[in-house]
């Protein structure tokens, strides 16, 4: 929990957003607004969102690479 609170205040916007959401799920679970099954499912979704983040970054790098190769080939 302490590390999540540290991350919620960190300078990286996406990490802070994810950490705040994890803390929100935790607090909603503690208050009884979420059932244990609902909270577990939402935490899994949060992890999947981070994986999607990595794949999206990977696609952006590949797109930049294709674009750079295309420009370079026109300069040959």
């Amino acid at each position, binding site marked *: 929990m302490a590390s999540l609170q540290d991350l919620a205040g960190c300078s990286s916007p996406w990490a802070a*957003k994810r950490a705040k*959401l994890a803390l*929100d*799920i935790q607090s*909603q679970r503690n208050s009884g*607004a*979420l*059932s244990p099954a*609902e909270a577990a*499912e*939402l935490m899994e*979704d*949060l992890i*999947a*969102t981070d*994986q*999607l*983040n990595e*794949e*999206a970054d*990977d*696609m*952006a790098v*590949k*797109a930049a690479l*294709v*674009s750079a190769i*295309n420009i370079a080939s026109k300069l040959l």
Partner: protein
Amino acid sequence: MKQFLAVLSLLLLTACNTTVATFVPSFWDDNQSRSIINTYQLTKHIDCELPQNTQAQQIQRELEWFQLYSESKGMLQKDVLQLIAPMQKTATEWADRSKEKDPSPAYCKIKRELLQTQAELASRAILGRF
């Protein structure tokens, strides 16, 4: 010797096929771009005061269209299919959970935020292709 070469060629072709499908990125596609923005828009309009199952199913159907279209397009679409897989899981779980009765409003609000984040990430990646 001929048999050996035939087997070797087959192995190389299979390896090449897998490599191409894994590492070569997909390119710009108007239909995929439209579909992912439709999905993003659906997530933007999720209303937790309204019945949840219909809304979950709309997102599920749009993602299914994207999947079927991309699979039909060919093997160079693995990257976009991987990209939408987490969103499909998130939407399917929501649809399944809301089948009998609506889950809690807290669940719906967090689900909405997660789906919006996922759709935004996927949209940027899909529309950012060359």
